[in-house]
């Protein structure tokens, strides 16, 4: 038997990571390249909903069925990424009764467990729901951490021999005689660009087959390969609340519309969203009205949102696709289904398939289908096991018990940490060294940070998505410098300093959309800490040389303060 075929997967989102895991588990040789961090694209910019399928139960029943199927799978294989919050489709007095009934029928038709609860029952579950909510349908929606899920998929792929390259941008798709034979990739380098996998320079990655799993960016790869892929990127805003106002996913039960969902996510609640087609998946306006609309419209469901603190907003771009002949004008009409575009069939270009459309909840199913397709290209008959074998971290969940005594952590910190690490908790947290909390908002300890650094290199944003450090209410104000300190040692000071700046800027980007009230005060305090106390805005280490001799050198002739050997009596400083 010869060596297995080498497959290059482009895109480090949920789809790409899922494909890399699937193919490598089937014994293929896989290289995944991602231009940023894992989850850099759409995956890292979603609301974290694990669909029950209820949202599609009226408009798109095929998607709804896939969702509930995959919802059940992920609860089993990704236990440490999923929180089964349950979900409600709530009906306000002005919402259409007919649609409510249709939603209920749709759920039942698609095999989604759905019960009608009264307004009072709904408020008993969620006390902050509006008083005039009439009734609701309860469904098995959940919350999922996309970062953790993708990192676990990548980790599993690596365990099965895959190579994962982040901060590696595809510069060209290599084609010989109408067949894709590989990629030209540029790996980022320098202190400003973080190190993971291969550092610096261009590389030609030869591949027997290429999978384009770049979602909203698929058209760009298509261009390099000379094929036309009409992805229709559609942006949506998500606004992150500082705390969870609800512990259940709250959906508005009406046909379609903006600002109709609140997802409890880890320590926060995420409000979503809008649906607006954009030209470019990277350059699009992020606008005030979108944030205001989230708060105002969703306050109709959860009134306390009106005055609650938001810590940031972010936008994601859906990689929507529809066959050109459909021609929907409104992006909300475009199907959420996914499409496998075999460029051999479609464009007479051998050796490459693109996968477009689809949604996060069904990432594994998409991975399975495209892996089947890739295997069939090589006549390989290997079964898919991604639905049965748990992801790293989700193998054994008994560790959740007794976590506190074992790791000597304060109860909620130990609990959160173990929830994030899953079955890896023991390996990560069992340390005899002092294990102080580095990020106090999210309860992330040094041991977890160090584990993340070992896994992701010197990019503090990669550490962030693994641990949630800096994702709490101070938005990194109090921990960016601590994280830089954690990096130092393994990496030199200039790398640590650059990573510190990188994290600060990234945190600032989203926080700008939350700058009023408490978060503006927080930003002002962060600014005072970083600029006033730490002088990081005018850091002499980053700027021109300083003439030290011109400044105060102290009172003594030798420049010393001459305080050595004074009062050691231990008496009170002042005579009160």
């Amino acid at each position, binding site marked *: 038997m010869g060596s297995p075929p080498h497959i290059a997967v482009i895109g480090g989102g949920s789809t790409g990571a899922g494909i890399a895991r699937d193919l490598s588990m089937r014994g293929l040789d896989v290289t995944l390249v991602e231009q940023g961090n894992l989850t850099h694209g759409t995956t890292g910019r979603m609301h974290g909903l694990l669909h029950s399928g209820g949202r599609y139960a009226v408009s798109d029943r095929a998607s709804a069925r896939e969702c509930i199927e995959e919802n059940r799978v992920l609860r089993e294989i990704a236990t440490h990424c999923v929180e089964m919050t349950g979900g409600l489709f709530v009906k306000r007095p002005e919402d259409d009764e007919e649609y409510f009934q249709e939603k209920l029928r749709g759920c039942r038709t698609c095999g989604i467990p759905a019960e009608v609860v009264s307004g009072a029952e709904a408020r008993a579950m969620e006390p902050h729901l509006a008083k005039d909510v009439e009734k609701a349908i309860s469904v098995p929606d959940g919350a999922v951490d996309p970062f953790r899920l993708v990192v676990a998929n990548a980790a599993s792929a690596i365990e099965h021999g895959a190579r994962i390259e982040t901060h590696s941008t595809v510069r060209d798709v290599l084609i010989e005689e109408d067949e894709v034979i590989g990629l030209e990739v540029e790996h980022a380098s320098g202190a400003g660009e973080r190190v993971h996998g291969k550092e610096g320079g261009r590389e030609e990655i030869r591949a027997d087959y290429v999978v384009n799993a770049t979602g909203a960016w698929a058209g760009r790869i298509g261009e390099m390969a000379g094929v036309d892929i009409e992805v229709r990127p559609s942006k949506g805003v998500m606004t992150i609340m500082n705390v969870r106002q609800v512990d259940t996913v709250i959906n508005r039960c009406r046909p379609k519309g903006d600002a109709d969902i609140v997802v409890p996510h880890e320590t926060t609640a995420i409000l979503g969203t809008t649906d607006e087609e954009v030209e470019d998946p990277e350059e699009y306006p992020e606008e005030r009205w979108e944030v205001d609309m989230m708060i105002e419209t969703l306050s109709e469901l959860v009134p306390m949102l009106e005055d609650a603190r938001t810590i940031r907003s972010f936008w994601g771009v859906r990689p929507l696709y529809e066959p050109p002949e459909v021609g929907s004008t409104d992006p909300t009409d475009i199907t959420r289904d996914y499409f496998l575009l075999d460029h051999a069939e479609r464009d007479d270009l051998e050796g490459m398939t693109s996968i477009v459309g689809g949604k996060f909840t069904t990432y594994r199913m998409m991975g399975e289908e495209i892996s089947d397709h890739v295997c069939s290209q090589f006549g390989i008959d290997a079964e898919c096991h991604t639905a049965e074998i748990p992801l790293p971290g989700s193998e054994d969940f008994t560790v959740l018990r007794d976590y506190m005594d074992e790791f000597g952590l304060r109860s909620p910190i130990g609990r959160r940490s173990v929830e994030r690490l899953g079955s890896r908790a023991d390996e990560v947290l069992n340390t005899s060294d002092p294990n102080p909390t580095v990020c106090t908002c999210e309860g992330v300890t040094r041991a977890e940070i160090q584990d993340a650094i070992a896994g992701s290199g010197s990019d503090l944003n990669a550490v962030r998505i693994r641990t949630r450090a800096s994702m709490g209410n101070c938005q990194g104000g109090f921990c960016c410098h601590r994280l830089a300190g954690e990096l130092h040692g393994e990496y030199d000071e200039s790398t640590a300093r650059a990573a510190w700046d990188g994290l600060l800027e990234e945190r600032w980007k989203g926080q700008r959309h939350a700058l009023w009230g408490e978060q503006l005060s927080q930003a002002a305090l962060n600014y005072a800490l970083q600029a006033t106390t*730490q*002088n990081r805005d005018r850091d002499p280490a980053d700027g021109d040389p300083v003439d030290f001799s011109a400044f*105060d050198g102290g009172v003594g002739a030798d420049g010393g303060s001459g305080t050595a050997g004074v009062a050691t009596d231990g008496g009170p400083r002042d005579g009160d």
Partner: protein
Amino acid sequence: MAIESEVLVVGGGLAGLTSALAAAREGADVRLVSYKQSSLRHASGLVDLLGYTSDGEGPIVDPYAAMPGLPDDHPYRTVGVETVREAMALFDNVTDYRGDHTDANALVPTHGGTIKPTARYPAGAAAGLASDDRNVLLVGIESMTDFDAPQAAAHLEAAGVPFDVRGETIRFPGDLRADAKVTRYAKLLDANGEVAVRGRTRGARDALAERVNTVHGNEQRVGFPAVLGDQRTDAVRGALEDRIGTDVFEVPMGPPSLPGLRLEEALFEALEESGASVETGNPVVDFDAEGGEIETVYIEKNGALIPNRADQYVLATGGLVGKGIESDRDSVREPVFDCHVAHADDRYEWFDGDAFGDHPFAQFGVETDETLRPLAADGRVEFENLRAAGSVLGGYDFAAEKSGSGVSIATGYVAGNTAATEVR
């Protein structure tokens, strides 16, 4: 009847304390009311005057010389350079701070490993100046994540300091829990409490010095994170200097900040000695005004409004950090007297796109006339008998300029003095 005084200062931070002190020293009957702990506890405890110009030029060697070049509406321009000097003299008089021997700024290393220009520094930071060419050992505590000594040392080197600097991390003697607060370290060293080291019990100061001695080479000065005592900081530092045999200094850090805490305590003591009355814990929530003058302010206690009356008032409630300036999605306001605060209508114009950009929010605050009376939108004086001091003032970016403490002291001094003069 109301609780009465001649001058009522609202706010207990650096500006409020300075103005109360200035007014009391002028012989006025002064009352200071402060809602909660001030931002002194967050700040480094260093007293900056002016480290950079409004255009970001610097570090400035002589802050006084640079003040006339500031924009017209800058608080330093309002009060004038000579007044700043007088105010600093008052500060020097009531504290044990260093740096008054020269007009030049000092460059002080802080906990991120950067150096920053400042005008006054606590005695405990004196041996750490970056213009001193003696070699430095920085000592970090393993479980104290705010100060990574090796990183700070490397960072100082990157800034080109004129000395060799090395960082070492040690474990604090006595196995304090990893999340022990800075006050815990300080208290243990204050009391020279007993700690167990390999089965032997000994004083915390000795035990700490001994740990340091195992990593100390030939450096002439040793820097610690700012946890060297609270009440007896001179004694703690002295004991360490004795046993290590070098000068010892603290690297300012925070929040929370022990140097800030100590400064706050020193200023409150000076204020109490001056005879002013003080009440903390409850907010001023309302006021009566008549004929353009404030007559009475109301302090809220669990639903009851307690009237306080004075002839002259000083508003020193702080900025966005101290909550003397508040905002919502649509507007920015000064919540106590509802003084005018200029701001763009669109909140997306309140900030810059870069984390360290030129942020309009950093300059939010009230505008005043030349005697520090807040001005309404139409340029008229809001109240004849109200003056504003400190971060509640607009027109300067204290973080970028490193001018926060100096503006608070200078404007507090002017507001307090003027108020006292008015009641005479």
